[in-house]
């Protein structure tokens, strides 16, 4: 068998994530500009990368219209000052957009088609509310291909509570609160800031600078969470407090073949081991990461016990809990989202996949005893995506 080209994650950065909507910090900032600023930031801190050697630019967005339309990878590359000889394209797998940018370019690198690629995603949910202008085929409902709940993510989360009654609202709230507290601690310890690219933001009060995520609520308490409304069902379990919010933000990463990284003197932060996507019933899309992770582990020849760190996207607390429950991992296992997750940071849909990787890469640096880590997320309409990574800093051990 021919030896496969090794694929590495060299580096990743993101904009601070904002709250979507008129009061959010990015209300007057274009979506494509968020991606451009992240891209410029990535290239500036990796000056060894010869820009004309970048083989492709893949940028994801869920709602590809307006300032998220026009083949984002190409437009943002031009706006970021990459040579016109560098091509680009756009990607969509809803929430797993950026993750798919990474896996798609990784596939091309592994095949030998690319040496260097930029992969990322952006979502300005303020300018592009989820599902805006969508026109689902009427057959979905007429032929009962999916239940009406499948198109409303909050309702799919309620369905997970239905299926797993032991995953209670109280457990979901506690998980959510811990996410907020872990992120606050990570900010306090300056873990998050190094990978943020500040963005100049225009407001009615003049120019400012976005330097931190806007959504976190470090003051969150169980009492506070308990009192929140359950907008998806009367007396339901899913609240704004135990879900990710509506956010604006962009992420980008630099992917390379191991050989190219060596040639240009780049120090990879992670080595890609395997990836997988899988489908589940759309009504309970949140359990998607379970089959995708099982598939990715199988392809890697690993078991869940080999994984030392998890970066799981927290679309909903219950959805993460279902994953942990399935694999027999405690709700508060320290290997899981040690710096908090999307419930605190925010989840600008198609950008989140690379955000998981950025944080896993940092944790790899801090945990040379860990060999393998997982980034995984659920995807609307019933999908899951998982990428398994190896820590180049691994020094043996468990």
């Amino acid at each position, binding site marked *: 068998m021919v030896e496969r080209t090794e694929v590495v994650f060299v580096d990743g950065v993101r904009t601070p994530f904002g709250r979507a909507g008129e009061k959010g910090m990015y209300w007057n900032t274009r979506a494509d500009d968020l991606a*451009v*600023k992240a891209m*410029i930031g990535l290239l500036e801190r990796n000056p060894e990368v010869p820009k004309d050697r970048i083989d492709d630019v893949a940028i994801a967005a869920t709602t590809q219209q307006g300032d998220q339309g026009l083949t984002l990878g190409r437009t943002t590359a031009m*706006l*970021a*000052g990459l040579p016109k000889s560098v091509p680009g394209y756009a990607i969509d797998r809803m929430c797993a957009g950026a993750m798919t940018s990474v896996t798609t370019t990784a596939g091309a690198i592994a095949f030998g088609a690319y040496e260097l690629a930029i992969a990322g995603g952006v979502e300005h949910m303020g300018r592009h509310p989820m599902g805006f202008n969508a026109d689902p085929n009427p057959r979905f409902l007429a032929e009962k291909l999916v239940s009406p709940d499948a198109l409303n993510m909050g309702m799919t989360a309620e369905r997970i509570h239905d299926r797993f009654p032991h995953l209670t609202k109280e457990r979901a709230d506690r998980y959510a609160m811990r996410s907020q507290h872990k992120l606050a601690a990570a900010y306090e310890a300056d873990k998050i800031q190094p990978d943020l*690219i*500040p*963005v*100049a933001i*225009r*407001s*009615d*009060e*003049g*120019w*400012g*600078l976005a*330097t931190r995520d806007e959504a976190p609520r470090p003051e969150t308490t169980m009492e506070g969470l308990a009192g929140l409304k359950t907008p998806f069902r009367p007396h339901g379990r899913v609240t704004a407090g135990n879900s990710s919010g509506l956010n604006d933000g962009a992420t980008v990463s630099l992917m390379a073949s191991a050989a190219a990284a060596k040639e240009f003197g780049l120090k990879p932060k992670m080595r890609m081991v395997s990836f997988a996507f899988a489908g589940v019933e759309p009504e309970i899309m949140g359990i998607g990461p379970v089959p995708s992770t099982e598939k990715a582990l199988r392809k890697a020849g690993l078991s869940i016990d080999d994984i030392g760190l998890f970066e799981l996207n927290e679309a909903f607390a219950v959805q993460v809990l279902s994953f942990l429950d399935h694999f027999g991992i405690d709700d508060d296992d320290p290997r899981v989202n040690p710096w908090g997750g999307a419930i605190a940071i925010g989840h600008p849909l198609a950008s989140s996949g690379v955000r998981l990787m950025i944080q896993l890469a940092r944790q790899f640096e801090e945990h040379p005893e860990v060999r393998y880590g997982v980034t995984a997320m659920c995807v609307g309409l019933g999908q899951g995506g998982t990428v398994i990574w190896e820590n180049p800093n691994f020094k043996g051990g468990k």
Partner: protein
Amino acid sequence: MAEFTQLAELLKDDEVVTHSYVRDVPLSGGKTLALVTLDNGRDHTRPNTMGPTTLLELQRTLQSLKDRASHGEIHAVAVTGKPYILAAGADLSHVDAIPSTEVAKQLGQQGHATLGLLGDLGVPSFVFINGLALGGGVEIALNADYRTIDSSVPALALPEVFLGIIPGWGGAWLLPNLIGIENALKVIVENPLKNNRMLKAKDALELGIADVMFEPANFLEDSIKWVDRVVSGTTKVKRPNQPGKIERAVKWDAAIGIARKMLQSRIGTVPKSPYAALDLLAAAKNTDKATGFAAEDEVLAGLITGDQFRASIYAFNLVQKRAKRPAGAPDKALARPVTKVGVIGAGLMASQFALLFVRRLQVPVVITDLDQARVDKGLDYIRGEIDTLRDKGRISPDESNRLKALVSGTTDKSEFADCDWVIEAVFEELGVKQDVFADVEQYVSETAVLATNTSSLSVDAIGAKLKHPERLVGFHFFNPVAVMPLIEVVKAPKTDDETLSTAMVTAAALKKTAVITKNTPGFVVNRILAKLLGEAMHAVDTGTPFDTVVEAVKPLGLPMDPFELLELVGLTVGAHVLDTHHAAFPDRFFESENLRKLAEHGKILDRDGKGKVKGYDKTALSIVAGGTTPMSADELRIRIEDGLADEIHRMLEDGVVAAAEDIDLCMIMGAGWPFQMGGVTPYLDRVGASERVFGGTFHTPPIRGVA
């Protein structure tokens, strides 16, 4: 804090206030930058400007930041603008309402009191020049300690001298002390007089106006990072152009002296503002800031209340506004599309037309002449010019190919069949032009516009042999065609609105300023120049020395004296212009036998090898000798002023153009008459000629200062 209430009163309801917003931005090490945004709440088509209320708000904002700085709350202050605009300078929309020198002085004082705070905050101040910066906008930046600039800034300038004033919010003192005397002269005096030339970002960086330049995509982010490095001391700012002791001791006065001599020879001594600027720049050598600012206040107040500034603002508004909305122009919707252009003639003028039309309209242009040899010569010229543009990098190779493919030549006028626009540039003789159009009319459609470039013939008469004279229009260019911005569009009695509209839209597409005139001899520019030159030659003919004639017109401050002008247009052409006007208006326009003789001789002025005028040609002097009733310079000046006032008054009575403003626009754009005269009519009002001749003024109230 002075309130400058009288000043604010002038504008109170009208000022589009540019607000000063403040947001704190975190710097490293727990420090804080207070970022001020100037924003008038409009889009980029209405740039930030600075009136009294704007300055008051900025002053309060900066004062409160000074207080915060003194409490250690902030560690740096930066000012930037709304997207694409820093600020386009002082709000001059109501300066003509300034009632006194005292109030005028407040204009400078308020600017100094406000912007001066940027040099006195107790923490480093920065201006991020993010976009257009003119006049007071640049002075905001100059008053700060440091400046960054966006590489895409399209224009940065101190245009005050162009408008008849001086940079009076610190610019005249700060700039030479920042970038050296020679650079400052270039920015404050030279560029404004070169048709108000502006700097690009790169120029501003090289001159030392900006300390550092960043790309537009991340301009603010990079500027803030730079502030961080300057505040923390990791970046030290070097200013190689900042004048040192030697420059002050040796270079400064010499540079001022050279500039003064150059000004005197180039523009004469009539315009006040360039010399006022020179004096301020000279004094900036060894005065302190407070003294320099006080001097600016005095000088600015004097100029702002004077005649020249008011006339200049009037002229500026003509060029900026009236030129874009020509009086009497029919609805643009009536214009017919021009998709192919025919040029009759292949001589120099015709070839210049072809080049202009193909470059600007980018449609097929076909030229024709009597024989193939002339056509080929014209085509060679046009293609050669296109190659030159390509070689200079002004157009790409693809564009050059495109333009060359669009140009063709023929002796077969059937190739004109699908032209929508045919312009002639043939010999200036009625019969020739009549025949040329009658001939081409056989081939073109009934609605194709026929345009004549005649300068002296009746457009109506030229159309006498046409079946459809309603599609004939005068389209009078000035030489050189590519450079001179004016076209006189002549509406003959039969010209219909569709044709006139097409002519106006086409002129705009050619990037020219078009003024609609009636079909009267000489239209506007030539008629007024013929009046002036006729009087000048008449004075010579009757025994007035050349020098006295030159002295007589000096107070007008024209770009050149009558004899230089005659040589520029050509003595033969000049004599012809006088003859045609004399023929049209024998009782008011002089012909000159002497000028005909001078034309035969070929020159009036004696020039050295480089073309510089040394004196008068000896033969020319002997040709004109013999007059017996010389006039004094004053007598002649009054004759000329009165003659111009009378002629222009008649033109307006006759409806040659819609208003006196159009006369002035023509003289500014077509003859380069100066802003300080306001073209011509404000000057004639202010020297009393209008009153003397017709007992009134062209403008009510007259455009003049308060002093």
